[in-house]
């Protein structure tokens, strides 16, 4: 057993303390960034233009990947459920019921958000990071433009407004994917699947899923913007910032998902 003043233990504790202080400092810096982000834009016309641009860039450009993932995941959920329903006591419509529940409660809001954290998060962090390292952000500031409000606010609002639409789209496609996989593999009929989808439906679950999505959208874009905005160095550091952004946003989504599930369902 090591004694308390063992140099290795002291070093380990110091390293842990430094990591905690660094994390706390980053959280403080992130909060201060958000304080500035939510300032009044210089010109509403320009802000509106940028908002539509970001909705297109962040939201509409993500439709193909969301569609593809949703169709296949819905299909897999339905197939897995059907394949594991060995008990004759379970009614066939359970397949539709489980597919719907999994999709609405977790798969669409959480899994798709994690995928978007990768796609959108890396995109946002590298775009802002490149602007930072090439002094474009300094140029904005010197001109008298609040660079955080100008660059980050439209991205956050664009994501918060459009991600719920993407998630509703994902829910629909996922259920369609489940139906297609069942019909093509002849594991269940359309009628029983539809009965399953409609059984014990709680509309509040949709509200819960969309509320989670709004929180995730905010976390993805704000965290990625944070890492992009505070990039120092060159191209290599932009890449590092993008990686940090995706990892941190993904962890934040998982933690927020746990907390929100506790709040809503328990």
């Amino acid at each position, binding site marked *: 057993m090591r004694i308390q003043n063992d140099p290795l233990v002291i070093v380990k504790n110091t390293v842990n303390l430094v990591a905690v202080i660094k994390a706390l400092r980053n959280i403080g810096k992130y909060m201060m960034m958000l304080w500035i982000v939510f300032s009044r834009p210089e010109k509403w016309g320009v802000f509106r233009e940028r908002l539509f641009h970001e909705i297109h860039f962040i939201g509409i450009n993500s439709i193909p990947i969301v569609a593809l993932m949703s169709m296949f995941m819905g299909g897999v959920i339905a197939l897995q459920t059907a394949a594991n329903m060995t008990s004759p006591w379970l009614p066939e419509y359970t397949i539709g019921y489980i597919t719907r529940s999994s999709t609405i409660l977790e798969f669409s809001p959480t899994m798709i958000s994690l995928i978007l954290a990768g796609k959108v998060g890396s995109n946002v962090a590298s775009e802002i990071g490149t602007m930072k390292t090439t002094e474009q952000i300094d*140029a904005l500031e010197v001109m008298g433009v609040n660079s955080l409000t100008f660059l980050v606010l439209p991205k956050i609002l664009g994501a918060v407004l459009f991600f719920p639409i993407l998630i509703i789209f994902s829910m629909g496609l996922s259920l369609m994917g489940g139906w297609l996989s069942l019909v093509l593999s002849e594991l269940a009929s359309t009628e029983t699947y539809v009965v399953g989808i409609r059984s014990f439906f709680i509309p509040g679950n949709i509200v819960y899923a969309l509320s989670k999505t709004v929180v995730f959208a905010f976390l993805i874009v704000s965290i990625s913007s944070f890492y992009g905005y505070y990039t120092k160095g060159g191209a290599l550091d932009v890449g590092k910032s993008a990686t940090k952004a995706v990892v941190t946003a993904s962890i934040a989504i998982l933690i927020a998902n746990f907390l929100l599930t506790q709040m809503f369902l328990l």
Partner: protein
Amino acid sequence: MIEVKNLDKSFADKQILHGINTVFEKGKVNMVIGQSGQGKSVLTKCIVGLHEPDEGGQILYGGKNFTEMNRKDRMLIRQEIGMLFQGSALFDSMTVEQNIMFPLTMFTKMSKKEKLDRVNFCLDRVNLEGRNGLFPAECSGGMQKRIAIARAIAMNPKYLFCDEPNSGLDPKTAIVIDNLIREITYEYDITTVVITHDMNSVIEVGDNIMFIHDGRNWWSGDRKSIITTDNQEIIDFVYASDFMKEIRSSMQEKRK
């Protein structure tokens, strides 16, 4: 006119600038020169507010204390500043026209036609008429610098900052850029601050010259006195190469 008083700047434990005092005069090309890593760019970034100076330092724009201003008031002063960055810092997602139009769109109520006229005037001023539709990536280094100058003068600034305007340019293009900066300064009677270590530029366009060494205002003077000074640090800087040293000794012999 810009006044800098007792400006110190430190990063963590390292002090970069030590008690800088200087005045950048209106209607003149004020040059800040010195070797790499001596604090020239840090000084400029402190003056435009991209870095916060250490406590006690003052920067005055036309008598107004910039260091004590809140963010909103600083933004107003910054709208009177044009800046040419070392790497041009043009927005790559925008065309040349959109780049130059950007400050006009953000801070004026001009109509689309007025803005376009102003853009064309600025492009004409830097001899790039008709290049409106190009993207920065499609332009050469010299063109990018000129576009950046056009963007910097679009708002009729009172203050123009140029951070190493000639870096990465061939000597001929560098002279074009230098002349452009000088012409704009005299034409619009603005306060221009040029950060450089290009001696050609210093001799060509420098009205007032400030030499920074070890983060201190080591020497100030004009372009004539920089050639004749006995200050050893300046001699080491100006006559760094063997060729220049030979020129200096032949000049001294002639004087004798």
